[in-house]
């Protein structure tokens, strides 16, 4: 499973292999490695093979070339796929089976991709380590005593371990880029409004966006080209043309200006991470890019802003889980209000409860102005910082995560410290800009390190071009311990 989507498709089209064979081997790897990694909550062998056979049939009997013909894809368990569960890593949804496909799924399937399973994640995408899943932790394929990052840890691990070439995750504050960094793969969070959120279970609606994991840039570009674009089922998708994201990948980056926010390379940043990102910056210089200093004076407030806005929106979005219309309902609660409370008490895990309470608090009478409105004002200042910065550069370089993958249990008792794992990623969600994490080295302990590229609205082509140029110059060839 190390071929790129494009070369694999060529092999299917020329008859060297079949979609069935490709999908079967991916399913087999998912099954074989799941005891070790716990990356999948559901694997659909018969369905995946049946759908792959249909693709083979279609290719034989028509001139379709299907952009993603026979590509096995893993999908985070908070994105609706008809015929699969959507637990969101939560007991409160349990074995909920949505009766419809998310728009991104419909588009993948129409392009010939085959969904092989649903991946484990932090409950309702709340977490940075995957330790908040109600269905057990996901292990990092590089070191199974360590977290894969979160919240889309299962998707990151599935791609890192070579089970699937690409996977979908979701982002609210870094839940694709951070696990991509900790698991040694590429992770893209597109511009807000680039991808449809229809069928993505809502966490914080003004921040949520479907993201993409891959092991090479052309694969990520290919998937983005299929899923992106206006969707009438999601009023927040923007009417902005979808370019061919693969077309500009080999453009010379000579003369591009990369912003380097010196102030963010300070306290709390692991020395190995710092050294790797510095080396990556040097590599860009060698490729002819110009490194310019940028200031993001309000970036240090992003975690504080994030944990007000995200929890406020979550407390509202998660009010729908009440044991009435779908999912889990607690037993022995003979009165309605008691049923609500008991269902939510037994159905939600501690982190989700903590965030619902925080969100309820910051929105409650007397505190709204002090917290929520203030956070939205500082959010505006963060966006303005970035707008200013992008007048002087084409993209900004930072670490993705302050540290490589940490040990299980290391941060579970200190939520605030866990939240700081997202210090470099949340700004993109707050401002709505795209961000991408690309592997740029290994720590002294052999753990992957990610570099983050941030760009202005709709700059996905630039970010993909920069990432591809970097990986061509400095290929990331290391393999995790656990690999298909």
């Amino acid at each position: 499973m190390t071929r790129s989507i494009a070369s694999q498709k060529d092999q299917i089209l020329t008859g060297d292999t079949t979609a069935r064979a490709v999908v079967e081997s991916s399913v087999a790897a998912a099954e074989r490695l799941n005891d070790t990694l716990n990356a999948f909550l559901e694997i659909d062998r018969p369905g995946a093979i049946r759908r792959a056979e249909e693709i083979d049939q279609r290719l034989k009997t028509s001139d379709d070339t299907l952009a993603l013909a026979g590509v096995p894809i893993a999908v985070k368990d908070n994105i609706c796929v008809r015929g699969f569960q959507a637990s969101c890593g939560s007991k409160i949804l349990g074995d909920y089976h949505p009766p419809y496909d998310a728009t991104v799924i419909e588009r993948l399937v129409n392009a010939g991709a085959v969904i092989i399973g649903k991946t484990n994640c932090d409950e309702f995408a709340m977490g940075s380590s995957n330790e908040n899943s109600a269905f057990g932790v996901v292990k990092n394929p590089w070191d199974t005593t360590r977290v894969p990052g979160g919240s889309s840890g299962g998707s990151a691990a599935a791609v890192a371990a070579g089970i699937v070439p690409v996977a979908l995750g979701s982002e609210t504050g870094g839940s694709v880029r951070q696990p991509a960094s900790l698991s040694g793969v590429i992770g893209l969070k597109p511009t807000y409004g680039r991808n449809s959120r229809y069928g993505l279970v809502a966490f914080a609606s003004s921040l949520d966006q479907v993201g993409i994991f891959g092991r090479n840039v052309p694969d990520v570009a290919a998937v983005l080209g299929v899923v992106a674009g206006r969707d009438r089922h999601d009023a927040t998708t923007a009417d902005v043309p979808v370019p061919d994201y693969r077309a500009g990948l080999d453009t010379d980056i000579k003369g591009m200006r990369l912003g380097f926010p010196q102030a963010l390379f300070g306290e709390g940043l692991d020395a190995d991470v710092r050294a790797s990102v510095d080396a990556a910056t040097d590599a860009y210089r060698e490729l002819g890019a110009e490194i310019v200093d940028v200031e993001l004076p309000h970036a240090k407030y992003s975690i504080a802003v994030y944990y007000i806005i995200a929890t406020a929106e979550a407390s509202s979005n998660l009010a729908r889980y009440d044991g009435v219309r779908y999912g889990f309902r607690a037993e022995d609660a003979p009165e309605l209000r008691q049923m609500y409370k008991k269902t939510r008490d037994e159905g939600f895990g501690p982190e989700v409860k903590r965030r619902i309470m925080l969100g309820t608090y910051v929105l409650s009478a007397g505190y709204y102005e002090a917290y929520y409105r203030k956070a939205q004002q500082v959010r505006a200042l963060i966006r303005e910082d970035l707008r200013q910065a992008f007048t002087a550069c084409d993209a900004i370089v930072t670490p993705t995560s302050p540290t490589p993958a940490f040990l299980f249990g290391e941060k579970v008792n200190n939520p605030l410290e866990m939240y700081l794992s997202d210090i470099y990623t949340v700004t993109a969600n707050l401002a709505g800009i795209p961000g991408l994490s690309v592997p740029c080295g290994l720590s002294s302990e052999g753990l992957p390190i990610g570099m983050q590229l941030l760009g202005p609205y709709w700059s996905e082509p630039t970010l993909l071009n920069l990432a591809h140029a970097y990986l061509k110059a400095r290929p990331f060839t290391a393999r995790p311990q656990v690999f298909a």
Partner: protein
Amino acid sequence: MPITEADIEKIAQLAHLEITREELRVFAPQIADIITYVEQLNEVDTTNVEPMLGGLTPEGELTDSARDDIVEPSLGQKIALEEAPDAVAGHFRVPKVL
């Protein structure tokens, strides 16, 4: 403003959450820590700063999301009820409301 166990109990009520004594002992200091942390925003001067509502880009703001007000096919009652913990005679059934 320091947040107390009584505050947490009140919030839990508002959020329809049942919190045990033990959870309260764990959550209260953690939430207090987080609130103290977010209060660093008070040092930012936001006079005359328009709050950023929602996450839309300028292009997203300009996108017209309205459509003609015409009924379109939807899931239908049968499918919509299929995942309900307790559905009967075309309705969601809930415990008595008192």
